[in-house]
């Protein structure tokens, strides 16, 4: 299972979630995606995106402005 890392820092809505969607779309079921973003809107967005698309949000950690999420493709 492949792991992809995405640096989404400096981007603002809607680009972070577009980049996550594009990367996950290319991957295979079970692939893991780790993304770092410093847009404050990313946290609620990633929750809503995972809920709607059915991919699993394994973790969400915050360090300063940075929000790191780990998603597994369904």
């Amino acid at each position: 299972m492949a792991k992809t890392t995405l640096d989404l820092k400096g981007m603002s809505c809607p680009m972070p979630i577009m980049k996550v969607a594009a990367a996950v779309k290319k991957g295979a079921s079970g692939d893991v995606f780790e993304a770092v973003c410093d847009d404050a809107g990313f946290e609620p967005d990633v929750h809503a995106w995972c809920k709607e698309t059915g991919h699993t949000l394994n973790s969400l950690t915050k360090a300063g402005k940075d929000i790191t999420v780990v998603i597994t493709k369904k």
Partner: protein
Amino acid sequence: MSADAVQDKLKELEERLAKVEGNRANMTMVLFSGDFDKAMAAFIIANGALAMGKEVTIFVTFWGLDVLKKPTMTGAGKNVLEKMVTMMRPKGPAKLPTSKMNFAGIGPKLFHYMMGKKNVTSLQNLVDTAVEFGVRIVACQMSMDVMGIKREDLMDGIEFGGVAAFLGSSFDSNTTLFI
């Protein structure tokens, strides 16, 4: 009810459920406004919905057509009134006015600057990204005819249609917005 009747009823309900679930996959918008800020909202929502796996149709009518215009569009081959409308309306995402604080064209420049500072993607980029993700854009043929806008005046890769094209898409969607 007989066993057959129950089977038939079950089949019917399954078909109806499939249709309802299918509708959840679609979103339709009318982009009526040619204002920069409203077009931004439309294309941010469109991109978000595409990212969430929806099929998105944007029916573009009236002033909204300004968003789709090629910057190179000219009045050539148009009658006097059409030439006037062509001259007076902005052509393409970079030239649109804002709905508030336009200040005779200074407002949009201010907003472009402020948005650039905050790394907000440009409207042109949002349109391109939506196209890349498979948005379906339908330009209103009737308003094009009224204003003398030809198919080659608008961006490539779009469709042309009327109210039924919008309604057909809207009836198959569970979200429809008018912007």
